[in-house]
């Protein structure tokens, strides 16, 4: 069996309805969510900003989501959406790319992550989404399915096709990094 990421138990946390639950939710998920956002944004500061924004939204809209029994998959979805928004803004920003890259640099890891994201960007969006949630987010397929709002078999199918296409892209580039 291929274990991806840390083999930790996936937390099941209700949508926070009190400061104590909010505190517990942040404590349990902050590192994973920031890691997930970083993989998209290649900037630790931007990743923290995005996740902070998501946590604040989650608590402000707690009444709306009172019946959600596990907030974790939804938080990943919210982070993914906010990261996409930020990337869109970056593309429209006037800052020279060189400056942006320098600001966002977090060593070789960020460079490598940028290369992987370029590859994922060439996949159909839903396949890339399934791969990111499973591999970057370390969510189970069940949680990925909850996150994107479709069935588990559909998510698995997207994952498999996405990985296969990614392999072909890598072969076209002439191998691994």
């Amino acid at each position, binding site marked *: 069996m291929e274990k991806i990421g840390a083999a930790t138990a*996936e937390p099941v946390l209700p949508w926070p309805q009190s400061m104590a639950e909010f505190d517990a939710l942040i404590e349990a998920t*902050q590192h994973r969510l920031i890691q997930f956002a970083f993989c998209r944004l290649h900037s*630790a500061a931007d990743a923290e900003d995005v996740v902070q924004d998501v946590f604040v939204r989650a608590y402000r809209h707690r009444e709306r989501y009172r019946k959600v029994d596990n907030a974790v998959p939804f938080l990943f979805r919210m982070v993914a959406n906010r990261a996409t928004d930020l990337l869109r803004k970056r593309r429209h920003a006037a800052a020279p790319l060189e400056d942006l890259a320098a600001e966002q640099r977090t060593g070789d890891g960020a460079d490598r992550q940028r290369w992987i994201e370029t590859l994922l960007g060439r996949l159909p969006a839903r396949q890339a989404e399934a*791969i990111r949630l499973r591999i970057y987010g370390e969510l189970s*397929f069940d949680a990925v399915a909850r996150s994107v709002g479709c069935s588990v078999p559909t998510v698995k199918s997207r*994952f498999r096709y996405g990985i296969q296409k990614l392999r072909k892209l890598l072969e076209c580039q002439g191998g691994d990094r």
Partner: protein
Amino acid sequence: MTCREAQERLADLFDSAPAGATAELQSHLAGCERCAAEYAVMRATARLIAPRLRIQASPDFKERVMKKLTEVETERRRWRFVPRLALVGAAAIVAVMLFVPRGGSPALSLLAQSAEAMSSLQSVHIVARMRTAPQDNFEYINPQMDWVPLEVWKEFGNPPKWRVEKPGRVAVMDGTSSLMLMRPDTAVRGGRMPGFFDWVYALLDPDKILDKELAAARAQQSTARMVEQDHQLVMAVERVAQGDFHNDWLLNNTISSSNHTRIYRFDPATKRLIGMQLILHSAVGDVPVFEITSIQYNEPMPANLFTIDLPANVSWYLPPEQMASSHALPQSPKEAAAMFFNALSRQDADALLAVYPGSAVPPWAKQLAGLQLVSLGEPFQSGKYGGWFVPYEYILNGKTKKWNLAVRNDNPAHRWFVDGGY
């Protein structure tokens, strides 16, 4: 299993929580070179894109989230955020305030208007933070500790209902009785005005805050000053620790036993309370130990907010008259302390439950098995606490602990029991 079925199920091998058995699939891979090769390629690709750089949240990330939440909420509700008054700032404000005379003051005028404005309230929801221990009682403060979130909900009505919560404790009043859960699994029942907390009652009645504070000022228990600042009405109340502090063990350990300044802010238009900050005057300087970050009035509150789902393994904290009495009972603070520590050392449940007000032996008791009691000092009293403190020293696992055990018998049954400090 056919090759097609196997390939369709290859993703199962990448799940962290596989829903079904994968034995059949793995058996197929073991006997099918083509499918095994396909799986190997997928595995290599997945490994390639797995992040190698692990990013962690900054140490102050949670605090920044809480701060951002406060700012956003404040902006949304068009409130003026209650400034985190730096001590220098607080001192400056106090300096420019006018002393409230006994009659005809702006404060009395505000009192009347504020009481009227808040008499029609349906509910209040206060979000605050406090320098305290998450598990400790609602009165406890410690300027050395980090902020702990605290939230208060109150639904006015006859009878009123409320909920007060911080990470380690939650207390509710459902209209007829109150209940507090000390997380994870200890609960205690109370009446309409339980002794779970004292000063938090003030927050439960924001419409009576001004009245009570001005009454205290007139009774010379405090000094109240009022000023209009940044288009807000600000009232600063200097409180002196209540009680006898010949032994200062309790001094500045709880709100009511501390020297502090309370700064209330009222909206001049609605006359409603919009913020509060409490600044402790301690030996190490002036430190904010409590502050309200937002107040929402007339927010709809679901009925289940005033109930607590207790864990299945809950143990109860009993009133003294219901405590076990099959064992010889202590007759003094020192005897109660000796019985408590000896019972823990021997893991003697009967003796422990004769001085500890639990329905069962608490889980933490196991951790103190085998402790060696070195000494018990002379009991003393401090502040307004109705019980006694017994100095103790014990050794456990080679480590020495010195502290003061709180014991009391100021109950109708005059039963000595251990109230804290262990």
